[in-house]
């Protein structure tokens, strides 16, 4: 059974979001997602400073099995990317919710957060797949 953290928000496309007090969102992929992908061997990250739209493909995660797009759950400016993943992509497998984060966004539309799922709704979503 994959791990779902209570205090995070989740997108239907299996990204998680954690928002801090300054309106900056950290984004990664869920434990369920990394488990489905298997061993991750390459990660591509968005460019710093670009503006991304909600549901836009902004990163790539490539496992032994397949390449998958990672979508931005929110609209905003990319303020930080986790460059450590470029050399250690397996961190996404071992720590999807902390060291395995992908990028941070300065949110431009907080209302979009309401469209994301809480942990219970996401658990149901995973069960349905």
């Amino acid at each position: 059974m994959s791990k779902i953290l209570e205090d995070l928000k989740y997108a239907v496309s299996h990204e998680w979001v954690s928002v801090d007090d300054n309106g900056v969102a950290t984004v990664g992929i869920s434990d369920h997602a990394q488990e489905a992908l298997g061993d991750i061997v390459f990660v591509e990250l968005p460019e710093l400073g670009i503006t991304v739209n909600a549901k836009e493909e902004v990163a790539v995660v490539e496992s032994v099995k397949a390449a998958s797009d990672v979508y931005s759950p929110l609209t905003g400016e990319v303020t930080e990317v986790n460059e450590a993943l470029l050399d250690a992509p397996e961190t996404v497998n071992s720590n999807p919710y902390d060291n395995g984060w992908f990028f941070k966004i300065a949110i431009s539309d907080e209302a979009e957060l309401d469209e994301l799922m809480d942990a219970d709704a996401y658990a149901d979503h995973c069960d349905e797949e």
Partner: protein
Amino acid sequence: MSYPKNIRPPTVGKRTPLYQQHVNAGAKIVDFAGWDMPISYGSQIEEHNQVRHAAGVFDVSHMTVIDVSGTDAEGYLRYLLANDVAKLKELGQALYSAMLQTDGGVIDDLIVYRMSFGYRIVVNCATRDKDLAWMGSQADGFEVTVTERPDLAILAVHGPSSIETASALLDETKGKTVAELKNFRGAELGDWFIARTGYTGEKGVEFIVPAGDVANLWEQLLAAEVKPIGLGARDTLRLEAGMNLYGQDMDESTSPVISNMTHTIAFEPADRDFIGREAVTDDLAAQEQGKLPKLVGLVLEGRGVLRAGQTVSTDRGEGQITSGSFSPTLKHSIALARIPSGSLTCQADMRGSATDVRIVQPNFVRFGKKVFE
């Protein structure tokens, strides 16, 4: 995140005698040609490395064992197979061969062993039905009996320490046999058959045993620190070893000549009539004139992973990747691809950008080491 299409929950299919042992070992079970098989028990890369550095065990009981006996067994197989079983001078000797259609298309690839009763053939699991049908249809006029052996299970133990570990846990006779067997040889010991004909590019030994004996052997191997390895790692190991996978790198629509299998066709003696002979003789001549493609190795040293089905472009035209993955040993992507003969340069479309890839001999890793230049 977009979900890859090849990741699907399992359905209930055929099961090997070790299904419960796989579940107990934490396997992720997938459907493989109608069988519920372990794709991995955790990390596919760790399993791959386990086989390259120590020893792992694969349950390949889904593969089909077919015994051929009768006074015409040799003559029948010399006609049926592209390689020549007359090369098998001694009991236990093994041969890799294609089984061809009249037009040269590959029906299957297989290993054939010379046995006390005749010959034993191990074919792929997904091709079982058509193989048996074809073998039956070609037996007219030969005094042979073709018998499937679903009562047998197969374990493959591979890795640099596989022989030593396996031989230490068996009884004296079997242990001695495992320790002394040469590569591409097998030995019949009662109702056990032990052989050294692997699919990983490492040392290894296969046990073809009665289904009732396999659980005990599995438990003994695990107790000796031999780790269970899933089909996922089996695929990356065989790709690193440059070995074809039936249905992916060759099938009925491809000649063995364009599948890097020419060396497995016995053209000599010239008077041996085998199914597909005329077609592959023509194919070979056409390839030498540059009219047919060939199966080569590709190497991408940068980021990204080459995938089966991807189109590549060379200085001689277009080609296609037949198998592609990340190589855990080399830590970059490798692939098998069918490209125009004589191609010198090759590019693959990596997410929109044309990226140079190197053309190499289709053999990447042997005994844990890189083998191409």
